[in-house]
């Protein structure tokens, strides 16, 4: 089926099979391999992307359902060059090790912090419960998110 969507600010027109998930579409049709697949049954959150402002599971969203949508992937968080404050905070707090779950966690937190830059630690943990990281033990991720709040509070979209 033919679909047209905007990915990281660029329009994309594609022909996909209905069974293609948004995550597979991004990875294979658009070569955006930063979005990872680890469980493909909606638990681990590695495939999280932002669709029309909302963080969603890329493995539980069909590409055809994203027809007409604005999609942001991990590749779209930082502009060319510098890391975003959230990405920098991940680095500073050692909030990633193998890096495989990281894309989904960054997109999740970016959506969350954009919605609510004053979010508290307990809610960050609750939201992060939709993502599995096998390396870090999560604490540095929560710390990084807390630190990044300031940049989101300053207004605008710090990811752009």
């Amino acid at each position, binding site marked *: 089926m033919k679909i047209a969507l905007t990915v990281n600010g660029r329009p994309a027109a594609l022909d996909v099979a209905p069974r293609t998930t948004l995550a597979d579409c991004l990875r294979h049709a658009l070569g955006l391999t930063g979005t990872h697949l680890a469980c493909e049954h909606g638990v681990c959150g590695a495939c999280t992307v932002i669709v029309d402002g909302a963080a969603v599971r890329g493995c539980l969203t069909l590409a055809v359902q994203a027809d007409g949508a604005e999609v942001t992937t991990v*590749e779209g968080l930082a502009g060319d060059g510098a890391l975003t404050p959230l990405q920098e905070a991940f680095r500073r707090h*050692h909030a990633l090790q193998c*890096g495989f779950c990281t894309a989904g966690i960054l997109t999740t937190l970016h959506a969350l912090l954009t919605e609510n830059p004053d979010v508290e630690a307990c809610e960050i943990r*609750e939201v*992060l*419960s939709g993502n599995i990281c*096998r390396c870090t033990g999560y604490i540095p991720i929560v710390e990084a998110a807390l630190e990044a709040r300031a940049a989101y509070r300053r207004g605008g979209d710090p990811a752009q």
Partner: protein
Amino acid sequence: MTDGIGARAKRKEDRRFTTGKGKYTDDIRVENQAYAAFVRCPVAHARINGIDASAALAMEGVIAVHTGPELKADGIGDLIAGWAITSKDGSPMKTGVWSPLVTEYGRYVGDAIAIVVAETQAQARAAAEAVEVDFEELPAVVVADKALEEGAAQVHENVPGNLIYTWELGDEARTDAAMANASHVTELDIVNNRLSPNAMEPRSAVAVYDEAEDHYTLYTTSQNPHVARLVLSAFYNVAPEHKLRVIAPDVGGGFGSKIYIYPEEIACLWASMKTGRSVKWTSERGEAFLTDAHGRDHVTKAKMGFDNEGRIVAFHVDTIANLGAYASLFATVTPTYLYGTLWSGQYDIPAIYGTVRAVHTNTVPVDAYRGAGRPEATYMIERMMEVAAREMRMDPAELRRRNFIREFPYQTQVILAYDSGDFDAILDKAQKAADVAGFPERRAEAEARGKLRGLGYSTFIEACGLAPSAAVGSLGAGVGLWESAEVRVNPVGTVEILTGAHSHGQGHETTFAQLVSDRFGVPIDNVQIVHGDTDKVQFGMGTYGSRSGPVGMSAVMKALDKVEAKAKKIAAHTLEASEDDLVIENGEVKVAGTDRKMGWHEVALAAYTAHNLPEGLEPGLKEGAFFDPVNFSFPSGALICEVEVDPETGVTEVVQFTAADDFGTIINPMIVEGQVHGGVTQGIGQALLERVVYDEDGQLVTGSYMDYCMPRADDVPSYVLDHHSTPSPNNPLGLKGCGEAGAIGAPPAVINAITDAIGTDDLQMPATPMAVWQALAWARSPVAAE
């Protein structure tokens, strides 16, 4: 400004990982790409009578379907166990034959029967479902102790009674005699729950055959690409080593599960040659649960004797270890030399004896998972100590202190000689950081809220940095366990480090660069770490057993020594000074006490221009080294866990977790803390949540993330960490290794805390809410709990 040893240097690799630019195996696309899917055994034990691929072959896009006999006819070898264990009667171990694609029998749900190659992944998978396997289901055995029972189903004809070996360690007569004279004996039945490692990146392989060169390339999710090449070449006959390149690009976690060479890689390589196509396979999560090596799965009866002052006089162990359907690469050594050799723990135990019976069952092969044998030993010893203290009405920390080893090196009764440690100091630090003195007050306060609060210890030691080649060779290892490194200084002074260690989350690109920065004052951004490619790095043993620091970095240090010596020769010649008077500081080579100096880049350039070298000195600045340690390294730690249990629901909350570790020298504290956090979290996962369950027919029940429960962000507490360093005398940096400590030490601390809270020791892992609720109910009224 350099990021030397001890600096909290931010990781170089984070830039690509946080921007989605990492390159993992499934991200790789090559020319002429086709996709593989596997036909798998749907039952736990079956005789394969025939395979009909005609319907599959007729499907759109299907290129080929290949089966086990075809691989066999082409000389592809069977999978090997890398370590030969001898039974106590002197007989060699008996293991079943593991063919990459089975020929006659399927022996676990997921056993690979055929490979399907098609134009797309979807076509390959659809065709795999269409391959008809005519099979006859046979009786299966799933549980370790049941495998040894009279009349149990036989997994392999050549392994009577499913018994792979009965291994023994220690002095039986002396242990029995000491036990008979003990004034107190603690006995405990212990189950170490079967786990699935669950690296977040599923296994993947891309096999590329180049007919023109008769050469193979394998991109794969490996912790040790050189070992993979060696084994694929020497034992599986896929291709000779010089015709096989193995590349492990970014790898998304391993935890042991990516050490092994699995049937899928073998079949993809062979199929690539057979079909003339590049063949790519990526595991689905369900497939990963069925086929990635599991971990642990021990059933143990242990007995510890004490004198009337609480000193251990004897320790007796009887373990059955479930190795699954086949003996995987490290499977036979994990429950023997990585387990029994740690039976002394941190304690001076004069008499130890134990046996381990390893068995085959109709389950996926079990192999080394983060800690590998050492968590099983630690869990057993540390549960024994806590239970013994309770039985003898002693403070559990005091009981430990009465038995601590205090002189090093210390020769245990079970082979190992501990290098260094200060167990009192780490326990002191842990107790202080955990405010053990304030625990009674916290317990009372919790009680007022209706919660049961408990505190549990774990004082552990482990053997890391796998290790002296001669020693492991004498114990049955098929390989040496040294590491290699090469240091290439470029003419502009930038540096490349080639290492046989492999990073899959450990941050080598940063920490290995810190060694160079520390030595030559080169910024870490000017140091490139090259690893994971057999064409670039000559050889290496890979990363597992917390060996990248103690062994891998030591090899780098040796090579750096050589580079430094040569650089000083060149600089001394140019500066007309004696080598002995030169110092390297802040990126400059200086004549001590003068203002004469050369920039590091000038020395490098001089080495390559070779216009003015000392007589007889070769141009260039590149040195290699191999490091083979004289002993393991022995990290140790004291962990203290505090939990609160809701007696009505059985829910355990870990409210405080303290870890004081001795890792020897620390290169990058930030990364070490990350390893501890991750390890402890996996340990808490084992203690509270994780278990692999097969039903009695051998069907995997916990085959998804809904049923196999790993800790999530709201399941773990914040951790309090501390360190006390006694550097290892056995490597140039004094490193001990830190990757596994948390997973090794944490489970008993958690269970000791819960059992302290609920007042009964009748509890096995995982201590799920229902298990805790049942233990409480049973303790209160055995009848009502029925």
